[in-house]
C-alpha cells in the first residue's frame, strides 16, 4: 500500500490506554466514586504516573483499594481508591464496580476501534482495487478505440483498392468491347472486299480476252485481206473468246465492285466517326448521329437478324468526349440484342423536352425482374451463364452516362422487354 496523504491503517496495531479511553469515558465514573463517598479515585499507569484522577475538596484519605486494569490480557493500569478508613467496607465494592465499568468501556472502545480499522482498510483496498480496475478498463477501452479507428482506416484502404480494381476491370471491358467491335468490323469489310477481289480476278481474265481480240484485229488489218474474210474470222474469234457474254458481264462486275468499295468506305467512315479518332478532348456531339454510327458498326450483328425501329427526333448537341456516347449505345444495343426474344426487335427513340434529352433503347425480351433492377448496373453482375458474359457491359454504360452528367434507369417496355432510359440534362449556353 502506497499512498501519499492516505492513512495507512494496519489492523490490530497496539494501542495504549490514552488512545482507547477518553476523558469523557473515565472522569464521570471517577467522580461517581467521589459521590459514593470516596476521597480520591484515579487511574495510574504501570510506572505509577496518574492518567486520570478525581479528588474530593475535603482531601484524599487513605488508600483503600488497588485493582489492576487489563487490556488484551496485559495489565496496563491500576485503579486506586482513597477515602476515610471507616468507609472501607463500603468503598471496596465501589472500586470493584468502577473497575468492571472501566473494563467494559475499554472493551467496547477497542471493539469499535478494531471495527473502524478493518472497515477502513477494506474500504481503502476496495477503492484501490476499483481504481486499478478502472485504469485497466480505460486502457483496454483505449486499445479498442484505437483498433476501431485502425479498422476504419483499413476498410477505407481496402475500399479504395477495390475501386481501383473495378476501374481497371471497366477499362479492360472497354478494351474487350473494342476488340469485339474490331472483329465484327473486319468481317464486315472482308465481305465486300472478297467479292471485289473476285470480280477483279474475273475482270483481269476478261481484259486478257479483250487484248487477244484487239491483237487479232491489228494483225489482220496488216494482212490486207478482203473485208468479208476478216469479218468471218473475227466473228469466229469473238465466239471463241465468248466476248458477247463477257461484255454483258463486265458492266455488272464493275458496278458490283464499286458498290462493295463504297460499302467499305462507309464502314470505315462509320468506324472513324464512332471512335472519334480524329478528335481530342470534348466537342459538341449529336446523339442521334452517334446512335446511327453505332448501328453502323453493329450492322454485321443487326442486318437481317433483328428488326430495328427508330423513332428519333432532332436533339440539341451535347458537349462531351466524342467516343463516350458510342460506348454507351454500343453496350446497351449489344445488351438488347443478347436479351431480345426469338424474333429480335429493338426500338430506339430519342426526344428533347426543352431541358432534358431522353433516349430509350428497348428490346422485346423477357424484361428484368424488379428485384434485379438495383443490381444490373453493378460491375460483374450478369444473368448469363458463367463464361458467357462479363457482367461489365451495363456497368460501362452506367459509368458513361454518369460522365455525361445524366442518369440511366430501366423500365418495362410496352409489350414486354426491358427499356433502358437515358436522361441527360442540357445546359443552356
Amino acid at each position: 500500500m502506497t499512498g501519499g496523504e492516505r492513512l495507512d491503517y494496519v489492523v490490530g496495531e497496539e494501542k495504549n490506554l490514552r488512545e482507547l479511553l477518553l476523558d469523557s469515558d473515565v472522569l464521570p465514573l471517577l467522580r461517581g466514586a467521589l459521590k459514593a463517598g470516596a476521597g480520591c479515585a484515579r487511574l495510574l499507569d504501570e510506572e505509577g504516573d496518574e492518567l486520570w484522577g478525581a479528588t474530593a475538596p475535603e482531601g484524599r484519605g487513605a488508600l483503600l483499594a488497588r485493582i489492576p486494569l487489563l487490556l488484551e490480557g496485559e495489565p496496563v493500569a491500576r485503579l486506586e481508591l482513597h477515602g476515610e478508613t471507616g468507609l472501607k467496607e463500603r468503598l471496596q465494592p465501589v472500586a470493584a464496580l468502577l473497575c468492571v465499568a472501566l473494563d467494559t468501556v475499554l472493551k467496547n472502545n477497542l471493539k469499535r476501534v478494531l471495527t473502524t480499522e478493518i472497515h477502513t482498510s477494506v474500504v481503502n483496498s476496495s477503492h484501490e482495487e476499483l481504481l486499478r480496475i478502472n485504469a485497466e478498463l480505460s486502457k483496454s477501452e483505449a486499445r479498442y478505440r484505437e483498433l476501431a479507428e485502425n479498422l476504419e482506416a483499413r476498410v477505407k484502404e481496402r475500399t479504395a483498392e477495390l475501386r481501383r480494381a473495378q476501374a481497371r476491370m471497366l477499362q479492360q471491358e472497354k478494351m474487350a468491347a473494342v476488340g469485339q467491335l474490331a472483329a465484327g468490323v473486319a468481317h464486315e469489310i472482308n465481305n465486300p472486299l472478297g467479292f471485289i477481289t473476285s470480280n477483279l480476278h474475273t475482270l483481269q481474265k476478261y481484259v486478257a480476252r479483250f487484248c487477244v481480240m484487239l491483237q487479232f484485229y491489228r494483225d489482220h488489218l496488216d494482212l490486207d485481206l478482203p473485208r468479208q474474210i476478216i469479218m468471218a474470222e473475227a466473228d469466229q474469234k469473238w465466239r471463241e473468246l465468248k466476248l458477247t457474254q463477257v461484255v454483258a458481264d463486265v458492266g455488272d462486275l464493275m458496278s458490283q465492285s464499286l458498290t462493295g468499295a463504297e460499302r467499305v468506305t462507309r464502314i470505315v467512315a462509320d468506324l472513324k466517326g464512332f471512335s472519334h479518332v480524329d478528335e481530342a478532348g470534348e466537342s459538341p456531339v449529336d446523339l442521334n448521329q452517334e446512335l446511327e454510327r453505332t448501328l453502323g458498326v453493329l450492322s454485321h450483328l443487326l442486318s437481317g437478324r433483328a428488326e430495328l425501329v427508330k423513332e428519333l427526333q432532332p436533339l440539341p448537341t451535347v458537349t462531351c468526349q466524342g467516343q463516350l456516347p458510342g460506348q454507351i449505345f454500343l453496350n446497351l444495343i449489344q445488351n438488347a440484342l443478347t436479351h431480345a426474344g426469338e424474333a429480335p426487335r429493338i426500338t430506339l427513340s430519342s426526344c428533347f423536352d426543352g431541358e432534358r434529352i431522353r433516349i430509350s433503347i428497348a428490346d422485346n425480351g423477357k424484361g428484368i425482374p424488379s428485384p434485379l433492377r438495383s443490381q444490373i448496373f453493378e460491375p460483374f453482375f450478369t444473368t448469363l451463364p458463367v463464361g458467357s458474359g462479363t457482367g461489365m457491359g451495363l456497368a460501362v454504360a452506367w459509368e458513361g452516362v454518369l460522365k455525361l452528367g445524366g442518369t440511366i434507369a430501366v423500365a418495362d417496355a410496352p409489350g414486354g422487354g426491358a427499356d433502358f432510359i437515358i436522361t441527360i440534362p442540357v445546359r443552356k449556353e
Partner: protein
Amino acid sequence: MIEYNETERRMVLKLVYYGPALSGKTTNLLQLHEQLARQGRGELMVLDTTGDRTIYFDLLPFFLTAPSGLKIKVKVYTVPGQVCHDATRKAVLQRADGIAFIADSNPGEAQSNFASFDNLERNLVLVGLDIDSTPLVIQFNKRDLPDAVPEQELRNIWGPTGIPVVMASAINGAGVPETFETLAGLVYDRIDARFRLLAEHGLERERFLRQLTTLSEEEA
C-alpha cells in the same frame, strides 16, 4: 513480520485462523477461550456478525512475560471464510506470524477447502509473505461427522507436504488446544534464533507453550 520493540521490551505475535466458510474457525477460538486458563488470556473479542457469520474477524489475545521481562502478546485472529470478504481476509492476513488452516472434513466441502487454500496462497503472496517459511498447521475439523473423509486418506494427501495435520472436532473441543499448541511451537522455533528467546530472554519452548496453553482445570 513480528512486531518487536526493543526499547519497550515488547513483542507482538500474530496468528491467523484461515479456512473456508463455516469450517469452524470461530468455534476454535470460542473453545480456546473456554478451555484455556484465565491467567494471561484476554477476553475473546467477537466483532459484529451478521446471522452468526463472521464478517470482520474475531480476536483472542494472550499475554505473557519472559523471565527477562520481555512482554509478549500473542493475538489470535480468525478471518471471514466467505468468498466475498476477500479484502478483509487480506487485511487480517497482513504481518501474520503463523497460520492455522481450518479445513472441513465433510467430503462435500473438499472443493471449498481447495479453493480456500488456493486463496490463502495467493493472498500470502499479495501481503508479501512466503508460504514456505511461514509456520502453518492444518486442522481437519468436524471429525465427528459420520461421513468425514477418512483420516488415513487425509494423512496420505498431506503427509508428504511436511505440514503438521491435526484432527479436530472443535464443537466438542477436541483437537483445538493441540492445533494451537502445534502452531505456537512452530512459531517459537521460527523466531527463537532471531530474537534469542532462550539465550537472551530465558524463555524456554516448554515454558512459552505452557503459558499459552494451560487448561482451566490444570490451573485449578
